[in-house]
Protein backbone atom coordinates (compact mmCIF):
# COMPACT_ATOMS: atom_id res chain seq x y z
CA UNK A 1 0.00 0.00 0.00
CA UNK A 2 2.95 2.29 0.76
CA UNK A 3 4.35 2.52 -2.77
CA UNK A 4 1.06 3.19 -4.58
CA UNK A 5 0.40 5.90 -2.01
CA UNK A 6 3.54 7.72 -3.21
CA UNK A 7 2.68 7.08 -6.86
CA UNK A 8 -0.80 8.57 -6.37
CA UNK A 9 0.53 11.58 -4.60
CA UNK A 10 3.37 12.19 -7.06
CA UNK A 11 0.79 12.21 -9.84
CA UNK A 12 -1.16 14.98 -8.24
CA UNK A 13 1.75 17.08 -6.99
CA UNK A 14 1.32 19.88 -9.49
CA UNK A 15 -2.25 20.12 -8.15
CA UNK A 16 -0.56 21.79 -5.13
CA UNK A 17 -1.93 18.88 -3.10
CA UNK A 18 -0.38 18.67 0.37
CA UNK A 19 2.61 16.41 1.08
CA UNK A 20 0.59 13.75 3.00
CA UNK A 21 2.38 12.22 5.95
CA UNK A 22 0.63 9.18 7.45
CA UNK A 23 -3.15 9.67 7.76
CA UNK A 24 -5.66 7.22 9.25
CA UNK A 25 -6.40 4.67 6.55
CA UNK A 26 -10.09 5.43 5.93
CA UNK A 27 -9.50 9.12 5.52
CA UNK A 28 -6.41 8.53 3.41
CA UNK A 29 -8.20 6.38 0.84
CA UNK A 30 -11.14 8.74 0.38
CA UNK A 31 -8.80 11.70 0.38
CA UNK A 32 -6.52 10.23 -2.25
CA UNK A 33 -9.10 8.99 -4.68
CA UNK A 34 -10.59 12.45 -4.68
CA UNK A 35 -7.31 14.13 -5.54
CA UNK A 36 -6.51 11.43 -8.04
CA UNK A 37 -9.84 11.73 -9.82
CA UNK A 38 -9.87 15.49 -9.79
CA UNK A 39 -6.69 15.95 -11.69
CA UNK A 40 -7.17 13.13 -14.17
CA UNK A 41 -10.09 14.35 -16.21
CA UNK A 42 -10.54 18.04 -15.82
CA UNK A 43 -7.16 19.73 -16.21
CA UNK A 44 -7.89 22.05 -19.09
CA UNK A 45 -4.23 22.90 -19.60
CA UNK A 46 -3.06 19.84 -21.55
CA UNK A 47 -6.47 18.79 -22.90
CA UNK A 48 -6.97 21.09 -25.93
CA UNK A 49 -10.34 19.52 -26.89
CA UNK A 50 -11.58 20.45 -23.46
CA UNK A 51 -10.27 24.00 -23.86
CA UNK A 52 -11.96 24.24 -27.28
CA UNK A 53 -15.29 23.09 -25.88
CA UNK A 54 -14.92 25.68 -23.11
CA UNK A 55 -14.54 28.40 -25.74
CA UNK A 56 -17.52 27.15 -27.76
CA UNK A 57 -19.48 26.83 -24.54
CA UNK A 58 -18.73 30.40 -23.55
CA UNK A 59 -19.69 31.75 -27.01
CA UNK A 60 -22.89 29.67 -26.94
CA UNK A 61 -23.88 31.03 -23.54
CA UNK A 62 -23.35 34.63 -24.70
CA UNK A 63 -25.53 33.88 -27.74
CA UNK A 64 -28.30 32.37 -25.60
CA UNK A 65 -28.14 35.36 -23.23
CA UNK A 66 -28.41 37.89 -26.06
CA UNK A 67 -31.21 35.83 -27.66
CA UNK A 68 -33.29 35.69 -24.47
CA UNK A 69 -32.80 39.40 -23.83
CA UNK A 70 -33.74 40.38 -27.40
CA UNK A 71 -36.91 38.27 -27.42
CA UNK A 72 -38.04 39.69 -24.08
CA UNK A 73 -37.13 43.25 -25.09
CA UNK A 74 -39.02 42.84 -28.37
CA UNK A 75 -42.03 41.76 -26.37
CA UNK A 76 -41.64 44.44 -23.70
CA UNK A 77 -41.33 47.20 -26.30
CA UNK A 78 -45.03 48.08 -26.45
CA UNK A 79 -45.81 47.82 -22.75
CA UNK A 80 -47.43 50.80 -20.99
CA UNK A 81 -44.97 53.67 -20.52
CA UNK A 82 -42.99 54.15 -17.30
CA UNK A 83 -44.41 56.47 -14.64
CA UNK A 84 -47.58 57.51 -16.54
CA UNK A 85 -50.80 58.05 -14.55
CA UNK A 86 -53.00 56.46 -17.17
CA UNK A 87 -51.31 53.03 -16.96
CA UNK A 88 -53.80 50.17 -16.54
CA UNK A 89 -52.14 49.46 -13.20
CA UNK A 90 -53.73 52.56 -11.63
CA UNK A 91 -57.24 51.12 -11.40
CA UNK A 92 -59.97 50.78 -8.79
CA UNK A 93 -57.96 48.19 -6.84
CA UNK A 94 -55.06 50.49 -5.97
CA UNK A 95 -57.38 53.48 -5.70
CA UNK A 96 -59.24 51.86 -2.77
CA UNK A 97 -56.00 50.92 -1.00
CA UNK A 98 -54.92 54.57 -1.15
CA UNK A 99 -58.24 56.27 -0.44
CA UNK A 100 -59.80 54.10 2.27
CA UNK A 101 -56.66 52.37 3.53
CA UNK A 102 -56.43 54.47 6.67
CA UNK A 103 -60.07 53.94 7.73
CA UNK A 104 -60.26 50.23 6.92
CA UNK A 105 -56.80 49.07 7.91
CA UNK A 106 -55.88 51.67 10.47
CA UNK A 107 -52.18 51.88 9.52
CA UNK A 108 -50.78 55.09 8.12
CA UNK A 109 -48.26 53.04 6.12
CA UNK A 110 -50.64 52.01 3.34
CA UNK A 111 -48.25 49.28 2.14
CA UNK A 112 -48.39 47.67 5.60
CA UNK A 113 -52.18 47.88 5.35
CA UNK A 114 -52.12 46.02 2.08
CA UNK A 115 -49.65 43.37 3.25
CA UNK A 116 -51.05 42.53 6.67
CA UNK A 117 -54.73 43.35 6.25
CA UNK A 118 -56.08 43.33 2.69
CA UNK A 119 -53.83 40.61 1.17
CA UNK A 120 -52.88 38.94 4.46
CA UNK A 121 -52.99 35.41 3.00
CA UNK A 122 -49.93 36.16 0.82
CA UNK A 123 -47.89 37.36 3.78
CA UNK A 124 -48.99 34.35 5.84
CA UNK A 125 -47.57 32.22 3.04
CA UNK A 126 -44.53 34.47 3.02
CA UNK A 127 -43.47 33.86 6.61
CA UNK A 128 -44.02 30.14 5.98
CA UNK A 129 -41.57 30.35 3.06
CA UNK A 130 -39.04 31.65 5.56
CA UNK A 131 -39.94 28.85 8.01
CA UNK A 132 -39.52 26.26 5.20
CA UNK A 133 -36.09 27.65 4.37
CA UNK A 134 -35.09 27.60 8.05
CA UNK A 135 -36.20 23.96 8.39
CA UNK A 136 -34.39 23.00 5.16
CA UNK A 137 -31.13 24.64 6.27
CA UNK A 138 -31.55 23.00 9.68
CA UNK A 139 -31.89 19.58 8.04
CA UNK A 140 -28.91 20.20 5.77
CA UNK A 141 -26.36 21.85 8.01
CA UNK A 142 -27.19 20.73 11.53
CA UNK A 143 -24.61 18.40 12.96
CA UNK A 144 -22.31 18.98 10.00
CA UNK A 145 -19.36 18.41 12.27
CA UNK A 146 -20.68 16.27 15.08
CA UNK A 147 -21.07 13.25 12.77
CA UNK A 148 -17.54 13.28 11.34
CA UNK A 149 -15.76 14.48 14.46
CA UNK A 150 -12.36 13.89 12.95
CA UNK A 151 -13.39 15.58 9.69
CA UNK A 152 -11.17 18.51 8.64
CA UNK A 153 -14.03 20.92 9.40
CA UNK A 154 -13.73 20.28 13.10
CA UNK A 155 -10.14 21.40 13.20
CA UNK A 156 -10.56 24.10 10.59
CA UNK A 157 -11.76 27.05 12.70
CA UNK A 158 -10.02 26.96 16.10
CA UNK A 159 -11.90 29.19 18.54
CA UNK A 160 -9.53 32.21 18.36
CA UNK A 161 -10.67 34.66 21.03
CA UNK A 162 -12.30 37.66 19.25
CA UNK A 163 -9.93 40.62 19.28
CA UNK A 164 -10.63 43.39 21.81
CA UNK A 165 -11.59 45.97 19.17
CA UNK A 166 -14.50 43.78 18.06
CA UNK A 167 -15.49 43.18 21.68
CA UNK A 168 -15.46 46.90 22.54
CA UNK A 169 -17.32 47.78 19.34
CA UNK A 170 -19.90 45.06 19.96
CA UNK A 171 -20.44 46.18 23.55
CA UNK A 172 -21.25 49.67 22.26
CA UNK A 173 -23.15 48.75 19.06
CA UNK A 174 -25.22 45.68 19.94
CA UNK A 175 -27.79 47.41 22.17
CA UNK A 176 -28.13 50.28 19.67
CA UNK A 177 -28.72 47.94 16.71
CA UNK A 178 -31.17 45.87 18.76
CA UNK A 179 -33.04 49.04 19.71
CA UNK A 180 -33.10 50.22 16.10
CA UNK A 181 -34.47 46.87 14.94
CA UNK A 182 -37.16 47.02 17.62
CA UNK A 183 -38.00 50.56 16.50
CA UNK A 184 -38.44 49.47 12.88
CA UNK A 185 -40.74 46.62 13.95
CA UNK A 186 -42.86 48.71 16.32
CA UNK A 187 -43.24 51.52 13.77
CA UNK A 188 -43.92 49.17 10.89
CA UNK A 189 -47.49 50.38 10.57
CA UNK A 190 -46.73 54.07 11.04
CA UNK A 191 -43.85 54.53 8.63
CA UNK A 192 -41.70 52.48 6.31
CA UNK A 193 -40.33 49.28 7.88
CA UNK A 194 -42.15 46.34 9.37
CA UNK A 195 -41.58 42.82 10.57
CA UNK A 196 -39.22 41.61 7.85
CA UNK A 197 -36.70 44.45 7.88
CA UNK A 198 -36.86 45.01 11.65
CA UNK A 199 -36.34 41.30 12.29
CA UNK A 200 -33.31 41.22 10.01
CA UNK A 201 -31.75 44.19 11.83
CA UNK A 202 -32.32 42.49 15.19
CA UNK A 203 -30.85 39.30 13.74
CA UNK A 204 -27.78 41.30 12.73
CA UNK A 205 -27.42 42.52 16.32
CA UNK A 206 -27.51 38.93 17.62
CA UNK A 207 -24.96 37.90 14.97
CA UNK A 208 -22.61 40.71 16.01
CA UNK A 209 -22.91 39.69 19.67
CA UNK A 210 -22.20 36.05 18.84
CA UNK A 211 -19.23 36.97 16.67
CA UNK A 212 -17.74 39.16 19.40
CA UNK A 213 -18.42 37.07 22.51
CA UNK A 214 -18.35 33.56 21.03
CA UNK A 215 -21.10 30.94 20.78
CA UNK A 216 -20.83 29.73 24.41
CA UNK A 217 -21.78 33.08 25.91
CA UNK A 218 -24.49 33.44 23.27
CA UNK A 219 -25.72 29.93 23.96
CA UNK A 220 -26.58 30.89 27.52
CA UNK A 221 -29.60 32.90 26.55
CA UNK A 222 -30.22 31.83 22.96
CA UNK A 223 -29.92 28.06 22.47
CA UNK A 224 -31.64 25.76 20.00
CA UNK A 225 -34.55 25.28 22.41
CA UNK A 226 -35.28 29.01 22.55
CA UNK A 227 -34.92 29.19 18.76
CA UNK A 228 -37.52 26.45 18.31
CA UNK A 229 -39.84 27.86 20.97
CA UNK A 230 -39.79 31.45 19.61
CA UNK A 231 -40.39 30.44 15.99
CA UNK A 232 -43.16 28.04 17.09
CA UNK A 233 -45.03 30.59 19.22
CA UNK A 234 -44.60 33.38 16.67
CA UNK A 235 -45.82 31.24 13.73
CA UNK A 236 -48.67 29.69 15.76
CA UNK A 237 -49.78 33.18 16.91
CA UNK A 238 -49.58 34.45 13.31
CA UNK A 239 -51.62 31.54 11.90
CA UNK A 240 -54.23 31.65 14.69
CA UNK A 241 -54.76 35.42 14.62
CA UNK A 242 -55.04 35.42 10.83
CA UNK A 243 -57.38 32.41 11.02
CA UNK A 244 -59.57 34.45 13.39
CA UNK A 245 -59.69 37.46 11.09
CA UNK A 246 -60.28 35.29 7.97
CA UNK A 247 -63.06 33.36 9.75
CA UNK A 248 -64.82 36.48 11.02
CA UNK A 249 -64.39 38.17 7.65
CA UNK A 250 -65.74 35.31 5.54
CA UNK A 251 -68.69 34.59 7.81
CA UNK A 252 -69.45 38.33 8.10
CA UNK A 253 -69.06 38.26 11.89
CA UNK A 254 -67.96 41.52 13.57
CA UNK A 255 -64.31 41.24 14.61
CA UNK A 256 -63.53 42.43 18.13
CA UNK A 257 -60.19 43.95 17.05
CA UNK A 258 -60.55 47.72 16.77
CA UNK A 259 -58.34 49.90 14.59
CA UNK A 260 -57.53 52.41 17.31
CA UNK A 261 -56.66 56.06 16.62
CA UNK A 262 -54.50 56.34 13.50
CA UNK A 263 -50.93 57.46 14.15
CA UNK A 264 -50.81 56.04 17.70
CA UNK A 265 -48.46 53.12 18.42
CA UNK A 266 -51.26 50.81 19.54
CA UNK A 267 -53.36 51.41 16.42
CA UNK A 268 -54.03 49.45 13.23
CA UNK A 269 -55.68 46.43 14.83
CA UNK A 270 -53.76 43.23 14.20
CA UNK A 271 -50.96 44.79 12.17
CA UNK A 272 -48.71 45.64 15.15
CA UNK A 273 -48.82 42.21 16.88
CA UNK A 274 -48.35 40.53 13.51
CA UNK A 275 -45.36 42.72 12.79
CA UNK A 276 -43.87 41.73 16.14
CA UNK A 277 -44.50 38.03 15.44
CA UNK A 278 -42.96 38.25 11.94
CA UNK A 279 -40.07 40.26 13.41
CA UNK A 280 -39.26 37.49 15.87
CA UNK A 281 -39.53 34.75 13.21
CA UNK A 282 -37.20 36.67 10.88
CA UNK A 283 -34.77 37.49 13.70
CA UNK A 284 -34.53 33.87 14.84
CA UNK A 285 -34.24 32.61 11.25
CA UNK A 286 -31.46 35.00 10.26
CA UNK A 287 -29.52 34.23 13.45
CA UNK A 288 -30.18 30.53 12.89
CA UNK A 289 -28.80 30.75 9.33
CA UNK A 290 -25.64 32.39 10.64
CA UNK A 291 -25.14 29.90 13.46
CA UNK A 292 -25.82 26.88 11.25
CA UNK A 293 -23.45 28.10 8.55
CA UNK A 294 -20.70 28.95 10.98
CA UNK A 295 -20.71 26.03 13.35
CA UNK A 296 -23.43 23.62 12.22
CA UNK A 297 -25.16 24.03 15.57
CA UNK A 298 -27.43 26.83 16.85
Amino acid at each position, binding site marked *: MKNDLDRDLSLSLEESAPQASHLDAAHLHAHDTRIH*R*QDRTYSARENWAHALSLGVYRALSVLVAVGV*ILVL*LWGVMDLPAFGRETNP*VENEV*SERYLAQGLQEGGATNLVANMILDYRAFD*TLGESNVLFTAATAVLL*LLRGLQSREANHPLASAAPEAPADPILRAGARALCPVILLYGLYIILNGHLGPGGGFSGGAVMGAALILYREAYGPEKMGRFFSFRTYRAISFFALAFYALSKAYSFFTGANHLPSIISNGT*PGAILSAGLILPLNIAVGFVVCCTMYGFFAL*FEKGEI
Partner: protein
Amino acid sequence: MNLQILLENRVEAAAIILFGIGLTTLLLNRNLIKKIIGFSFMDSAIFLFLASEGYISGHTAPIQDAAGSLPAASFINPIPAGLVLTGIVVSVSVTAVMLSLTVRLYQRFHTLNLDEIVQLAREANEEEEEAND
Protein backbone atom coordinates in the same frame (compact mmCIF):
# COMPACT_ATOMS: atom_id res chain seq x y z
CA MET B 1 -38.77 54.45 -32.94
CA ASN B 2 -37.94 51.30 -30.95
CA LEU B 3 -34.84 52.83 -29.41
CA GLN B 4 -36.80 55.90 -28.34
CA ILE B 5 -39.39 53.73 -26.54
CA LEU B 6 -36.62 51.73 -24.90
CA LEU B 7 -35.00 54.94 -23.66
CA GLU B 8 -38.29 56.12 -22.29
CA ASN B 9 -38.99 52.79 -20.56
CA ARG B 10 -35.34 52.41 -19.57
CA VAL B 11 -36.03 51.08 -16.08
CA GLU B 12 -38.08 48.21 -17.50
CA ALA B 13 -35.54 47.67 -20.31
CA ALA B 14 -32.67 47.51 -17.79
CA ALA B 15 -34.70 45.08 -15.67
CA ILE B 16 -35.27 42.81 -18.67
CA ILE B 17 -31.56 42.89 -19.61
CA LEU B 18 -30.63 42.06 -16.00
CA PHE B 19 -33.17 39.21 -16.08
CA GLY B 20 -31.56 37.83 -19.26
CA ILE B 21 -28.06 37.99 -17.75
CA GLY B 22 -29.24 36.42 -14.48
CA LEU B 23 -31.15 33.63 -16.27
CA THR B 24 -28.20 32.65 -18.43
CA THR B 25 -25.79 32.84 -15.51
CA LEU B 26 -28.08 30.51 -13.58
CA LEU B 27 -28.42 28.09 -16.49
CA LEU B 28 -25.03 28.08 -18.18
CA ASN B 29 -22.43 28.97 -15.56
CA ARG B 30 -20.79 25.90 -14.05
CA ASN B 31 -19.81 27.30 -10.66
CA LEU B 32 -22.47 26.86 -7.97
CA ILE B 33 -21.79 30.17 -6.22
CA LYS B 34 -22.08 32.03 -9.55
CA LYS B 35 -25.34 30.19 -10.22
CA ILE B 36 -26.80 31.39 -6.92
CA ILE B 37 -25.70 34.97 -7.57
CA GLY B 38 -27.26 34.67 -11.04
CA PHE B 39 -30.52 33.48 -9.53
CA SER B 40 -30.51 36.38 -7.08
CA PHE B 41 -29.93 38.86 -9.92
CA MET B 42 -32.78 37.28 -11.91
CA ASP B 43 -35.15 37.72 -8.97
CA SER B 44 -34.13 41.30 -8.23
CA ALA B 45 -34.58 42.08 -11.95
CA ILE B 46 -38.18 40.84 -11.86
CA PHE B 47 -38.85 42.88 -8.70
CA LEU B 48 -37.28 45.98 -10.31
CA PHE B 49 -39.64 45.47 -13.25
CA LEU B 50 -42.62 45.04 -10.90
CA ALA B 51 -41.77 48.10 -8.80
CA SER B 52 -41.23 50.26 -11.88
CA GLU B 53 -44.79 49.45 -13.01
CA GLY B 54 -46.25 50.95 -9.85
CA TYR B 55 -44.23 54.15 -10.06
CA ILE B 56 -46.02 57.36 -11.07
CA SER B 57 -43.68 60.29 -11.76
CA GLY B 58 -44.34 63.16 -9.41
CA HIS B 59 -46.11 61.06 -6.75
CA THR B 60 -44.74 60.28 -3.30
CA ALA B 61 -44.40 57.15 -1.16
CA PRO B 62 -47.76 55.78 0.10
CA ILE B 63 -47.37 56.95 3.73
CA GLN B 64 -50.55 58.70 4.84
CA ASP B 65 -50.26 61.18 7.73
CA ALA B 66 -52.19 60.59 10.97
CA ALA B 67 -55.05 62.93 10.08
CA GLY B 68 -55.40 61.30 6.67
CA SER B 69 -55.15 64.71 5.00
CA LEU B 70 -52.86 63.77 2.09
CA PRO B 71 -54.91 63.31 -1.12
CA ALA B 72 -55.09 59.74 -2.41
CA ALA B 73 -53.97 60.94 -5.85
CA SER B 74 -50.57 62.05 -4.53
CA PHE B 75 -49.33 58.51 -3.82
CA ILE B 76 -47.77 55.87 -6.03
CA ASN B 77 -49.43 52.46 -6.43
CA PRO B 78 -48.84 50.42 -3.20
CA ILE B 79 -49.54 46.96 -4.68
CA PRO B 80 -46.14 46.40 -6.38
CA ALA B 81 -44.36 47.58 -3.20
CA GLY B 82 -46.19 44.93 -1.17
CA LEU B 83 -45.54 42.17 -3.69
CA VAL B 84 -41.84 43.00 -4.01
CA LEU B 85 -41.49 42.98 -0.21
CA THR B 86 -42.76 39.40 -0.24
CA GLY B 87 -40.46 38.60 -3.16
CA ILE B 88 -37.28 39.89 -1.52
CA VAL B 89 -37.78 37.61 1.48
CA VAL B 90 -38.52 34.65 -0.84
CA SER B 91 -35.28 35.41 -2.69
CA VAL B 92 -33.26 35.47 0.54
CA SER B 93 -34.74 32.21 1.81
CA VAL B 94 -33.99 30.42 -1.46
CA THR B 95 -30.44 31.84 -1.47
CA ALA B 96 -29.89 30.50 2.06
CA VAL B 97 -31.11 26.99 1.10
CA MET B 98 -28.99 26.93 -2.07
CA LEU B 99 -25.88 28.07 -0.16
CA SER B 100 -26.33 25.40 2.48
CA LEU B 101 -26.71 22.82 -0.32
CA THR B 102 -23.48 24.13 -1.88
CA VAL B 103 -21.58 23.80 1.40
CA ARG B 104 -22.85 20.23 1.87
CA LEU B 105 -21.93 19.36 -1.71
CA TYR B 106 -18.46 20.84 -1.32
CA GLN B 107 -17.94 18.95 1.92
CA ARG B 108 -19.00 15.73 0.14
CA PHE B 109 -17.38 16.15 -3.33
CA HIS B 110 -14.75 18.88 -2.84
CA THR B 111 -15.75 20.72 -5.99
CA LEU B 112 -18.05 23.60 -6.91
CA ASN B 113 -18.44 22.56 -10.55
CA LEU B 114 -21.95 21.10 -11.06
CA ASP B 115 -20.85 18.81 -13.93
CA GLU B 116 -18.13 17.28 -11.77
CA ILE B 117 -20.60 16.85 -8.92
CA VAL B 118 -23.08 14.98 -11.10
CA GLN B 119 -20.26 12.85 -12.49
CA LEU B 120 -18.87 12.06 -9.03
CA ALA B 121 -22.37 11.35 -7.70
CA ARG B 122 -22.99 8.86 -10.52
CA GLU B 123 -19.62 7.16 -9.85
CA ALA B 124 -20.26 7.13 -6.10
CA ASN B 125 -23.61 5.52 -6.90
CA GLU B 126 -22.02 2.71 -8.93
CA GLU B 127 -19.54 2.11 -6.12
CA GLU B 128 -22.47 1.69 -3.73
CA GLU B 129 -24.02 -0.76 -6.20
CA GLU B 130 -20.87 -2.86 -6.34
CA ALA B 131 -20.58 -2.64 -2.55
CA ASN B 132 -24.09 -4.10 -2.26
CA ASP B 133 -23.44 -7.06 -4.59
